[in-house]
C-alpha cells in the first residue's frame, strides 16, 4: 500500500497547494515541502531493506483496475527505482526551494503542476503494468506543458507545444507497441494482460519483436533524447522556468533511460542485442554532437541544455553495452547528471534573476562580484567535464570501460567526448566568471537560501564521487536481474559479452581509480 501512498500524497498535496494558493502564496510552498518530506521519509525507510534472494522486488503490490482488459494497478519497487525515486524527491524539494522567490505569479497553480509532474514521474518509476506505465508517462506531460507554457520565458508557447507534440507522438508509437505486445502475448498464451511480469518472456518472431521494440524505443529515445530526435530539448530547457529546467533535465530525461532498462532489455532480449551496435552508435553521435553544439552556444542556458544531450549519449552507450560494469555506470550517470546539470540550471537561473540576460557575450569577469556563485559554477562545471572525485567521473569511466569490452571502437570515440566536455565546461567558467568584463553588472552574491541549495548539491555530487558504493549496492540486484533476463536465448553476439566481473571487484576497482 505504501507505494500507492507515495503517489497519493503527492496528488493530495497538489490539490491542496492549488486551493491554498488562493489565500496566501506561502501555503502552496509549505504544503509542497511537507508532501515531499513525507515521501522522502517513506523512501529512506526502504534503503535499509535488502531484497530477499527469493523475491526480486522490495515491495510488490497489485490491484485490479480495469479487469476487462487485464489492466491492473501493479506497482513495485526495486533498487533501480529506489535510487531514482530518491533523486526525484530530493530534486523535488530543491525545486520548491529555488522557486521560492522566482515564481511570484499563480503560485498555487505552479505547485499544483510541480507536484503533479513529480507524481507522474514517481508513477513511471514504480509501474509494472504497461498500461499504467503509459498512463503515468502521459500524465507527466500535461503539467510540464503548463509549467513551460505559463511560467516560461519569451518563446514559451512555441517551446511548450514542441515539447508536447514530440513526446506525445513518440508516446503514441509506444502505445501501439504496447497493444501489439499485449495481443501477441494473448494469442500465444491465451492470457490477455498488461502485466509486465507476465509479459516477460513472450516468444515472438524476431522481426515482429524488432518492430515492437522500435515503437518503445521511439518514446524512450525522444525522451532521453538521442541526437536526431533531440530537437525539442534545447527549446524546452531554455524557455522553462528554473524549476522546470531542473525537472526536465534531472528527472524527465531519466524516465527515458529507466524505460530502456526496465522495458526494452528484459522484454526484447534478443532484439535489443541486435539493435545494440546502432544504439551504441547513436550514443557516440549524441556525445560528440551534443558537445559540439554546446560549445557553439552563446546562450548560457542553451549551452547547459546541449550538455545534457552529450551526457545522455553516455547513458545510451552504456545501456547497449550489455554488461554489469556499464550498467552500474549508467545508474550512476543518471544520478550524477541529475545533480550536476540540475545544479548548473539552478545557477544559470539565479544568474538570470540578477542580470536578466543569458547571453555569454555580455558576461565576463563576474568572479570578483560574485565569488561564491563562481565557485559553485566551477565545481559543477568540473563535475560536468568528469573531474575525478565527483560523481560524473565514476559514471563515465565505468560506462567507457564497460563499452570497451563490447565495442572498442565506439568506446574510443566516446572518450573523445571527455575532451569535448572539458572544452565547453572550461568555456563556461572562462566566459562568465573570468576574462574581460564586457558589461558592468551590479550583482549581489548568493543569499543564504541559494547557498544552502547549492551546498547540498555539492555534498551529494562529492559524496557520489568518493563513496559511490551505496548506490551500487542498492542498484546491483536490479541490474543483475536485468542481466539475467538477457541470458535467455541470446543469439551469438558480434563481440563477446563479459559478465564475469563480480560486484566486489567492481567496487574495489572503482574506488582505487578514485584514489589515484
Amino acid at each position: 500500500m505504501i507505494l500507492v501512498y507515495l503517489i497519493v500524497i503527492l496528488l493530495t498535496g497538489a490539490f491542496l497547494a492549488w486551493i491554498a494558493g488562493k489565500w496566501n502564496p506561502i501555503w502552496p510552498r509549505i504544503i509542497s515541502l511537507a508532501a515531499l518530506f513525507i515521501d522522502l521519509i517513506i523512501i529512506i525507510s526502504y534503503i535499509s531493506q535488502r531484497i530477499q534472494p527469493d523475491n526480486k522486488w522490495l515491495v510488490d503490490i497489485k490491484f485490479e483496475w480495469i479487469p476487462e482488459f487485464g489492466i491492473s494497478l501493479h506497482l513495485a519497487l526495486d533498487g533501480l527505482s529506489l535510487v531514482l525515486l530518491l533523486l526525484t524527491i530530493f530534486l523535488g524539494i530543491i525545486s520548491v526551494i529555488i522557486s521560492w522567490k522566482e515564481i511570484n505569479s499563480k503560485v498555487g497553480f505552479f505547485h499544483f503542476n510541480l507536484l503533479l509532474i513529480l507524481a507522474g514521474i514517481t508513477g513511471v518509476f514504480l509501474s509494472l503494468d504497461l498500461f499504467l506505465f503509459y498512463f503515468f508517462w502521459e500524465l507527466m506531460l500535461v503539467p510540464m506543458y503548463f509549467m513551460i507554457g505559463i511560467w516560461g520565458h519569451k518563446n514559451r508557447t512555441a517551446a511548450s507545444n514542441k515539447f508536447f507534440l514530440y513526446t506525445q507522438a513518440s508516446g503514441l508509437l509506444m502505445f501501439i507497441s504496447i497493444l501489439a505486445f499485449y495481443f501477441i502475448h494473448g494469442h500465444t498464451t491465451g492470457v490477455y494482460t498488461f502485466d509486465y511480469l507476465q509479459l516477460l518472456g513472450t516468444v515472438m518472431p524476431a522481426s515482429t519483436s524488432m518492430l515492437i521494440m522500435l515503437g518503445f524505443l521511439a518514446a524512450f529515445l525522444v525522451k532521453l533524447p538521442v541526437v536526431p530526435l533531440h530537437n525539442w530539448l534545447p527549446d524546452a530547457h531554455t524557455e522553462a522556468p528554473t524549476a522546470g529546467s531542473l525537472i526536465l533535465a534531472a528527472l524527465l530525461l531519466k524516465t527515458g533511460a529507466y524505460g530502456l532498462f526496465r522495458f526494452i532489455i528484459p522484454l526484447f532480449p534478443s532484439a535489443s542485442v541486435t539493435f545494440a551496435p546502432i544504439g551504441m552508435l547513436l550514443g557516440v553521435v549524441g556525445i560528440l554532437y551534443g558537445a559540439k553544439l554546446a560549445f557553439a552556444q552563446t546562450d548560457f542556458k542553451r549551452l547547459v541544455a546541449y550538455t545534457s544531450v552529450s551526457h545522455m549519449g553516455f547513458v545510451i552507450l552504456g545501456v547497449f553495452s550489455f554488461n554489469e560494469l556499464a550498467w552500474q555506470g549508467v545508474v550512476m550517470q543518471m544520478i550524477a547528471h541529475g545533480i550536476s546539470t540540475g545544479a548548473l540550471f539552478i545557477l544559470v537561473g539565479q544568474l538570470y534573476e540578477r542580470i536578466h540576460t543569458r547571453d555569454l557575450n555580455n558576461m565576463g569577469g563576474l568572479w570578483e562580484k560574485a565569488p561564491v556563485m563562481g565557485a559553485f559554477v566551477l565545481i559543477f562545471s568540473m563535475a560536468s567535464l568528469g573531474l575525478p572525485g565527483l560523481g560524473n567521473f565514476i559514471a563515465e569511466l565505468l560506462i567507457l570501460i564497460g563499452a570497451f569490452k563490447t565495442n572498442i571502437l565506439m568506446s574510443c570515440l566516446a572518450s573523445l567526448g571527455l575532451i569535448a566536455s572539458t572544452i565547453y565546461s572550461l568555456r563556461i567558467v572562462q566566459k562568465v566568471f573570468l576574462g574581460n568584463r564586457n558589461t558592468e553588472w551590479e550583482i549581489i552574491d548568493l543569499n543564504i537560501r541559494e547557498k544552502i541549495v547549492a551546498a547540498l548539491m555539492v555534498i551529494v555530487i562529492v559524496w557520489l564521487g568518493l563513496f559511490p558504493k551505496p548506490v551500487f549496492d542498492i542498484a546491483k540486484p536490479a541490474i543483475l536481474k536485468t542481466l539475467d533476463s538477457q541470458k535467455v536465448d541470446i543469439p551469438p553476439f558480434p563481440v563477446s559479452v563479459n559478465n564475469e566481473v563480480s560486484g566486489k571487484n567492481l567496487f574495489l576497482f572503482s574506488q582505487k581509480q578514485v584514489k589515484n
Partner: protein
Amino acid sequence: MIIATAPVVIMIVVSILRNYEVVYGFSIFSLLIAFASIFFIVPSVPHSIEPLFIIDIYSIFFLGIIIISALLVTLLSYDYIKQLEGVREEYYIILLISTLGASLLAVANHFILFFLGIETLSISLYIMIAFQRSKGTSIEAGIKYLIIASVSSAFLLFGMALIYTAFGTMQFSAIVSALGNNGQLSALVISGFAMMLVGIGFKLALVPFHMWTPDVYQGAPSPVSAYIATVSKGAVMSVLIRLFFNIRGFENYYLFIIISGIAILSMFIGNLLAIRQQNIKRLLAYSSIANMGYLIIILLTGSSKGIQASVFYLISYFITTLGAFGVVSLLSTARSEAENIEDYKGLFWKRPWIAVVFTLSLLSLAGIPVTAGFIAKFYIIFEGMKAGLMVLVFSMIINSVIGLYYYLRVITTLFSTAGETSLPELSLTGNFTLAVIGVSILILGIYPGWLIDIIVKFITL
C-alpha cells in the same frame, strides 16, 4: 413513450401560462421521468412491437444516452435562451420533439420508422438552428441545414427503395433473414446501402458529406450546436451500427473499402481543416468530423466487442462535447457569441473552474490520460488492432497528434495572460451542469471499469 406526451402537455401549458421558468422546469421534469422509466422497461426486454419497433438492451442504452444528453443540453440552454427576445418557450417543445425523433431512431426496426425518426429529428432541428430569427447567420445556418438534410433524406429514401426492390421488405430483421447466410450481396443491395450511407453520412457529417457542419455549428445557438453534435449524431449512429452489423457489412469487400475510405478521409480532413480555425465553434465542428471518423472504424471490427467500444466512445464523446459546447454557451450571450478563440484569452485566471472544465474537455477530445477520451480512444484502438485494422489504427494515431496541436492552441489561450473581454455572470444551473460534466470526464478517465463492466454485460446485438 413519455417523451412523446411531454411536448403535447407543454404545448397546452404554454398556451395557458407562457412562462419561461415553468416550461423549462417541465421539460427537465419530463426528461427525468423518461429516464427513470427506462429502468422499468429493462425487465421486459427484449420486446418488439411488430413490425416497427424493437426494444432491446442495446436500444435502451442508446435511449438512456440520448435522454441524458438532451437533459444536459436543456440545462445548458437555460441562460442562453432566456436572453433571447420574443417567444422562447417553444424552444423546449421543439427540443423535446427532436429528442422524440432521436429516440425513435434508437428503437427503429423498420425503414419506415427509421425515416420517420430522422425526419422528426431534422425538421425540429431546422427550427432550433434558426431559432434566433434576428440574426443573419442563424437563419443562414438553418436554411443550409434544411437543404442539405432534404438532399440527404432523398438519398436515404432512394437507398431504402432499392433495398425494398431487392428483398420486398423494409424490416431490419427480415432483411437479415432475406440476406441468408450466403454473405454475398447483389449489386442492387450494395448500391442501396451505399445510397443510405450517403444519407447517413450527411447526418453524421462524415467526409465528403461534411460541408454543412462548420457553418451550421457556427450559425446555430451554442446549445443547439451541442445538441446536433451529440443527440442527433448519436441517434443516427445507433441505427447505422444496428443496420451495418445486421447485414454484416464488414464482410463485404466494397462496403469495407468505402467505410475505410470515409473513416480515413474524415479523420484527416477534419483535423487538418481544424488547425487553422480561429472560431471555436468551427474548430469543434471540424473536430467532431474527425471524431466520427474514429468512431466508424468500429463498424469494421465486426464483433460485439466493437459495439461495446463504440458505446463507450459515444458516451465519453457526448460528455466531452457537451462540456466544450457547454462552456461556449455559458460564456455566450444572445447578442455576442463567445466564439473567437481570442475571447477565451486568460479565462483560467478569471473563471478558473470553467476553464478547468473546458481544458478537461479539450484534453479528453485529444485523448490525454486521466480523461474519458483517453480510455475511449484506447478502447477503439484496442478493438481496431484486435481486428487487424492496422492502416486505420495508424491513421488514428497520426490524427491524434494533429488533433493535439489545435487543442493545445486553445488550451494555451486559456492560460495566457488575461485579455480585456468581459464575461457574463453565470447561473447556478450552468455551473452545476458543468461541474457534473467535468467530474464525469475525470471519473470515466480514472476509473472506467464499472462502465465497461455494464456495457460488456448488457450490450450485444
